[in-house]
């Protein structure tokens, strides 16, 4: 019987790609709230459910979704976590 598996995908720009949104938010936290924030990068998360016969198969489906559409490997990297 296939089961539903639930994952969170975390997508971030690669380390060498500038993130202007994160830079701006960091400046606000430092400047307005005096917090010692040394780095802040904003990515996106995708909350996804898939049907599969095993956790391994479910993860493979999610990774395929990332590689086909959800992630642009030229500028982004991602991590998958089952929840």
């Amino acid at each position, binding site marked *: 019987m296939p089961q539903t598996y639930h994952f969170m995908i975390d997508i971030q*720009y690669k380390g060498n*790609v*500038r993130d*202007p*949104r994160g830079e*701006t938010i960091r400046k606000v936290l430092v400047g307005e709230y005096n917090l010692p924030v040394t780095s802040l990068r904003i990515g996106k998360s995708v909350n996804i459910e898939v049907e599969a016969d095993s956790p391994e198969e479910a993860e493979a489906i999610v990774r395929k979704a990332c590689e086909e*559409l*959800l992630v*642009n490997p*030229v*500028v982004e990297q991602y991590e998958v976590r089952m929840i």
Partner: protein
Amino acid sequence: MNPKAAVVVYPGTNCDRDTYYALELAGFTPEYVDWHGDVKGYDLVVLPGGFSYGDYLRAGAVAAREPVSKSVRAYAEKGGLVLGICNGFQVLMEMGLLPGGLLENTSGTFICKWVDLEITDTDNPFLSRFKQGEKIKLPIAHAFGRYVKVGDPKVALRYVEDVNGSDEKIAGILSEDKNIFGLMPHPERAMEKLLGWDYGKNVFLSILDWIRGGNRVV
């Protein structure tokens, strides 16, 4: 007979009519081709600007996977001429037909203004009417125009001043075979002096020269 140009229209494309008008003014016979369509048989394919699929996920990401985009790929791989303007450039990049990435401007804002540009390659079907190093003006209107360089792209157009944080002030690039040209500025909005400058006209006239010179590939 005027060469035939396809103007590809995705849901959310909004520069299609300007592009149609510009093509007609330059001497093409334009036709709209929607996202279900096929671009086979045209002399030129233009992916116009706009916000295909509301820029959901990433600018151009969903449009790049539509049926018409598969036909654009087949057309381009046979050597067909493809011009991607603004969102069209983003779509070509998402399709992997041009190298690199286009991300949010470093200013974090949408930028809409005329900018100074330098032509850095004229030995191609799109810019032959310009002189190498010529300075021109075209309007830009984008939030995701920061070009992130990957590899060694064939740069055809650079901003004179940094406007959006693009690597090496890159504003437009050509494919390896120079049959695909993607640029963030809008030549179709610079067709008549009445609206400021008409440098855009030479882009479309260059393409016309190339086709009329018997260089048609597809």
